[in-house]
């Protein structure tokens, strides 16, 4: 098992990682914000986690949960070995994500592995900048658009 969330780790909120087509089919209105763990009490799961966010704010999370009920997730290595950053992609037909008039197509702005607070791999995720917002979804749900 990988190491749990600790000082210096980069994290995102679970709410910013709600991915189509899972908790709700949505595109977020902004890219997920990243933060760095300033301090944490060792767990598992870690508690009293203080995060310094990219916008300069700092938040203390007394409880972050574990597994699927976690409120913070750690960014890790994208295991596919395929770099999609800046490539134009769209949802695959098999993904279950609709793509009417190509509105869910766009360049990939972020790609990373996602881990729960105990360090267990959750998914490889891409963030796609579409005309209607930031689509967060699994790496396996998108395909490169060759013509763009």
């Amino acid at each position, binding site marked *: 098992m990988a190491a749990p969330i600790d000082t210096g780790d980069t994290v995102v909120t679970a709410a910013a990682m709600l991915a189509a087509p899972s908790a709700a*089919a*949505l595109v977020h209105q902004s890219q997920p914000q990243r933060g760095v763990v300033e301090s944490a009490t060792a767990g598992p799961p870690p508690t009293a986690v203080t995060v310094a966010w990219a916008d300069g704010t700092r938040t203390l999370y007394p409880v*972050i949960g574990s597994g699927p009920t976690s409120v913070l997730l750690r960014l890790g290595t994208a295991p596919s070995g395929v770099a999609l950053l800046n490539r134009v992609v769209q949802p695959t037909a098999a993904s279950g994500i609709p793509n009417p008039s190509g509105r869910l197509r766009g360049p990939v702005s972020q790609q990373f592995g996602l881990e729960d607070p105990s360090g267990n791999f959750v998914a490889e995720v891409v963030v796609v900048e579409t005309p209607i917002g930031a689509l967060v979804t699994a790496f396996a749900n998108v395909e490169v658009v060759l013509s763009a």
Partner: protein
Amino acid sequence: MAAIAAGSVVAPTGAFGLLETAARAPMFGVCASAVPPGGPGLGPTNVVVVWEDGTTVTYADSTNVLEQVLPPATPSLLGSRVTYNAAAMAAIPAPGGRAVGPVILHASGTNAAGDSTVQDFVVTQTPLGFLTFPLSLAQVVPG
């Protein structure tokens, strides 16, 4: 349907002004912890929510202020252009197509107690802002 508990996806009730546009889309959060409700019709208390932007808020009583967000029960309209059904909503004007826009969210929702009817709703991005309405009133516009 269960009441809000750790891991539940939530949105603020105040973000859903049905049929009136809002300046921003509903923000989502995940419940970090909650004390189970005291009885039927009541939401949990001491609900700690971590919002998308990293902020965390504790709600002493979630009954009237938080909604639960669930996967849509019907095929997603994400990305489709929709407006509200003119026949069903004859009293609501939509001049110049200002109530038409792509769907940025299609989900089901219920109240904090988990005892209200679960129904699909969509949020669209219109020229005037973000418009929320029940799926039963949605009408897909070609294009």
